[in-house]
């Protein structure tokens, strides 16, 4: 060090006098507050642990192969979960088949096309309009011009609307399904009506998740493709969409896992039917008249006064939670495996 040459005081110089430093002291309120937040977090985690252990302790004894493959029965010792499992699988298939294409399409439009600048297209249309004389053609061009102008407002409306829809209580979707699918469209209180209702329920969630996944893909990828002469649609379909697909699938799985656990809308649409039928796995099978699903079966059992039904309800919950766990794990793996850092 260069202390020798510089003119700061030599080490022998007396230090400035300052008050002595305070020793570390206990601050009871500090400690108390820290413990408070630790305990509050702990209580929440403990409640979750209590929930899971109480269900597992109660239901594990009733879990068996027979339980998974057995038909519903009025005798708790013989009652099986097979119809509920099959019902949930069919519901899942219908829900995905309906909600996924619509949700992803809506997300693509909102994220990639609706916000695109309209100025150029508007000018082009205006020029065309001047050159056109045909009445029908003019009307069509007028319509398109009008759409370009109102599009931003519509998009904003859709935006607000989707976030509001995501917060609507699920039982309201049940009422919608009851009135539209069962009432007006005359679909029986069946798996089809239930699946369509669940599809409507998770559509906003799929749109929101897909938009996020699309947004995470850098614009440069799309611009790169367009610079090579691709149209916007080609760029989106060939470059952006594949890049966003893992994120979209992750969001879809999480949305479907929400649908699997929904009970209230299914009860509203289909009621609680006690039957011993076993639904076919074919989603379009007309024989699937009664609405079976895991949460419905669990509700039915829980609602029975006999204690032995509580045990099989718990067993059903274990199966339901295991299904959700697997779906969530798949979603997490998908996300970690394919997530790219741009």
């Amino acid at each position, binding site marked *: *060090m*260069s*202390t020798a*040459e*510089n*003119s*700061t*005081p030599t080490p022998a*110089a*007396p*230090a*400035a*006098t*300052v*008050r*002595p*430093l*305070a*020793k*570390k*002291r206990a*601050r009871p309120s500090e400690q108390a507050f820290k413990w408070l937040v630790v305990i509050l977090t702990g209580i929440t985690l403990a409640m979750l642990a209590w929930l899971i252990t109480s269900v597992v302790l109660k239901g594990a004894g009733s879990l068996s192969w027979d339980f998974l493959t057995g038909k519903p029965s009025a005798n708790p010792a013989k009652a099986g979960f097979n119809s509920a499992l099959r019902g949930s699988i069919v519901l899942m298939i219908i829900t995905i088949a309906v909600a996924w294409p619509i949700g992803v399409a809506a997300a693509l439009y909102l994220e990639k096309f609706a916000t695109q600048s309209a100025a150029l297209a508007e000018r082009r249309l205006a020029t065309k309009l001047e050159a056109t004389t045909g009445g029908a053609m003019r009307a069509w061009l007028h319509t398109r011009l009008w759409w370009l102008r109102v599009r931003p407002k519509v998009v904003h409306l859709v935006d607000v609307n989707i976030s509001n829809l995501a917060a609507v209580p699920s039982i309201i979707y049940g009422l919608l399904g009851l009135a539209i699918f069962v009432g007006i469209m005359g679909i029986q209180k069946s798996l089809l009506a239930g699946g369509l209702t669940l599809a409507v329920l998770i559509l906003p969630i799929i749109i929101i998740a897909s938009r996020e996944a699309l947004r995470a893909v850098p614009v440069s990828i799309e611009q790169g493709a367009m610079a090579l002469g691709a149209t916007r649609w080609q760029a989106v379909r060939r470059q952006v969409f594949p890049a966003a697909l893992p994120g979209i699938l992750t969001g879809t799985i999480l949305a479907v896992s929400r649908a699997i656990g929904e009970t209230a809308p299914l009860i509203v649409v289909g009621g609680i039917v006690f039957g011993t039928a076993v639904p076919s796995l074919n989603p379009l099978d007309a024989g699937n008249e009664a609405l079976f699903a895991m949460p419905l079966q669990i509700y039915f059992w829980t609602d029975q006064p006999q204690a032995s039904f509580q045990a099989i309800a718990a067993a059903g919950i274990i199966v339901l939670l295991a299904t959700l766990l697997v779906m969530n794990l798949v979603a997490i793996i998908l996300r970690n495996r394919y997530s790219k850092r741009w």
Partner: protein
Amino acid sequence: MTTDVDAETNAPIQISVAAGSSAQAGSAATATPAGNPPIFRMQDLGVWYGSHQAVRGVTMDVPRNAITALIGPSGCGKSTTLRCLNRMNDLVPGARVEGTIMFGDENLLSSDVDPVDLRGRIGMVFQKPNPFPKSIRDNIEFGMKVNGIKPTPERVEQALRDAALWDEVKDRLKEEAFSLSGGQQQRLCIARAIAVEPEVILMDEPCSALDPIATLAIEELMRKLAERFTLVVVTHNMQQAARVSDQVAFMTVEGSDEGERCGVLAEVGTTRQIFSAPSDPRTEAYITGRVG
């Protein structure tokens, strides 16, 4: 103290660093506050973040009631060193500080020293103005309450006057601090620090987010504050160091044994000496603009 003269005579030195006469520097040195008794004595200070050593072997004194500037290229550990003085590094997970910093007669790095109490005595002003999202008055009163000082209107006014902000805000004490301009916010942060009646004020590049006019106001304020407080200022602006400081410590980056880059203290001396006759070739290269 000859603060005004200092500021003026330092300015031309900036332009002709190489021409500065060492005799002149030597005679001026004894007349500056750089000769005050030291309030901090750093001995072999080193800072680790996890397994990476950010700073090593810093040994220097900080004189009382003077402005000490820490200068050097970015990444040389100026801010890290500054943050040792009020133990802000304690808050960084994985940070470890070695060596000693004597504050008066005690090592403030000692584990039995209360860092919370220490920070009440050694104030800090940050790179970007960081007022709390509260009213101007609440910003001043916050530190007072925390340190057990009764927040009277007189004390609030005095702190704002000391920070040369009173005239601009006296009619709007209830307004949000965010409504102030950047320079005003920074002076509010200084007022907030003064209100606690600290002994030392640490400033981490206090003007880097400000325009030249706001910078000038802060610099004038710093000179005034040096009459009552000890200031340690990190700056990347050499003109600023030359204008306001009494003592300058120049830090630089060296490759360590493992090839990692680590901040070291190259040289410390009076401002005049560092800017006119630096003894370390790296200092000279930096202040004449050949590096950094």
